[in-house]
């Protein structure tokens, strides 16, 4: 607590897009309540504090720290360790901090290939001398140092222990507000904090449970990319052959995406007790495929199923769009014996 009796609040972004910060701002006028209740001591996006300020704080100085973003370079990791030390309650805020999210899709390729794509091959890049970022550069004025880029993107929880996790890309404002209310009540002694380590600000059931679209029996003979068909309104998207991660994804968002005709992307991560969201989605998807009947010879059977699977673009990027860093394999093998060098990566959409 500060001298004025207010709990101290911090928020930081590591490897992320900034959407989590926007989502906090999207609690609208309730933000004034946050300002009223908390003493902001670190929030680079909204207030002018420097890393030096944080280093000067005593350990455990920040009462509540929301950390969004994955761990992608040495700076991210250093800040994760620093904020862990300085915070009483450290929250992995949003999908990147929780499970790697979009940045971790680059775990499908190598550090070298990622740098090559960004600094040399992207159509909008002009880099005739082929300069790639170096951790250390000598200039006449001395030596410059920038953070070192990692080969593998990690989640916050893979670097430091986290107290709570708020999933979502980004977390929904009403869920953020519900969490902040609980924390404030707990700090005032009016409520208990949720059990340590729990996932808060999210549902306990799959997205399908809260999705209002009509669900019949699912039999899919081919899958479509979102741009290939115009979904029939009111009807389950998966039944229409659009890959929807709803069956394998934690709810709490209100099934916003399926309701506007876009299959669930999977951003709230796996449900309790599920180790690998991608494997669960793979299981669910394979179950609804209608190909192969008893009596068919084994070769034709396989061929018919393969034809359906051909219509699923980029299974790894789709099933692990948000959870690659937290998946069982964690990353792709890019230079092992027999491993394919320079695999195509990306979400494919």
């Amino acid at each position: 607590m500060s001298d004025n009796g207010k709990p101290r609040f911090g928020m930081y972004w590591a490897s992320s897009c900034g959407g989590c910060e926007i989502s906090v701002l999207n609690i609208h006028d309730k933000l004034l309540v946050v300002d009223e209740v908390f003493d902001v001591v670190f929030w680079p996006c909204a207030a002018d504090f420097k890393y030096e300020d944080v280093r000067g704080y005593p350990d455990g100085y920040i009462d509540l720290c929301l950390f969004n973003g994955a761990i992608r370079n040495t700076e991210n990791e250093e800040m994760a360790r620093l904020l862990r030390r300085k915070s009483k309650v450290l929250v992995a805020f949003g999908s990147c901090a929780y499970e790697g999210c979009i940045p971790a899709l680059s775990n499908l390729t190598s550090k070298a290939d990622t740098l090559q794509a960004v600094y040399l091959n992207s159509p909008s890049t002009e880099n005739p001398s082929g300069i790639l970022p170096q951790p250390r550069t000598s200039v006449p004025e001395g030596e410059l140092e920038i953070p070192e880029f990692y080969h593998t993107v990690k989640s916050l929880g893979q670097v430091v222990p986290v107290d709570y996790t708020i999933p979502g890309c980004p977390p929904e404002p009403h869920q953020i507000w519900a969490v902040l209310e609980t924390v404030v009540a707990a700090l005032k002694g009016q409520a208990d904090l949720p059990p340590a380590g729990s996932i808060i600000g999210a549902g306990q059931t799959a997205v399908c449970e809260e999705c209002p679209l009509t669900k019949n029996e699912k039999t899919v003979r081919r899958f479509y990319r979102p741009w290939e068909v115009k979904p029939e309104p009111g009807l389950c998207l998966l039944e229409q052959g659009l890959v929807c991660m709803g069956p394998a994804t934690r709810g709490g968002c209100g099934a916003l995406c399926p309701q506007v005709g876009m299959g669930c992307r999977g951003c709230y991560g796996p449900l309790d007790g599920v180790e690998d969201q991608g494997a669960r989605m793979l299981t669910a998807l394979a179950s609804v495929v209608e190909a192969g009947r008893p009596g068919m010879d084994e070769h034709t059977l396989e061929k018919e199923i393969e034809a359906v699977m051909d219509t699923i673009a980029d299974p790894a990027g789709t099933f692990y769009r948000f959870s690659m860093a937290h998946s069982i394999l964690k990353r792709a093998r890019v230079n092992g014996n027999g491993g394919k060098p320079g695999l195509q990566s990306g979400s494919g959409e």
Partner: protein
Amino acid sequence: MSEPFEPLIIGFTCNWCSYRAADLAGTSREKYPPNIRLIRLMCSGRLDPTFVLKALAGGADGVLITGCHPGECHYLEQNFKALRRYLLLRRLLTQMGVEPARVRLVWASAAEGVRLAAEIDRFVEEVRRLGPLNWPAVVSENGAEMPEPATEVTA
């Protein structure tokens, strides 16, 4: 001289056909390599792809999935689901840089002990040719190791 590479294979069998086939291979003194560790499930349809990923991530060099022939499943059509999952899983594994040949599905009825033993033999040799997978090293390559979270907490 270095030791020849002995692959570690995890095998999943179904209670009604392939496990009996493996049993039959044993009782009829049919030899198959000891590289395979068999785990019995009630049905190949019970095989969550998570099991395969976990086996590979935990150090297995290959995974053999076995079940009743299509149309002969004790639970009617669950092995069709197993086949669909297997075919999709192979695609996913290819993207993850795992040679699809490291995971194989073999149908074996309770009477096919000899055939199952031969398939295991062939699969072990194929994985031996591919070499070790050693997934823990894949995750820690280039020094970007995945350390256990540090225990320094100051709450």
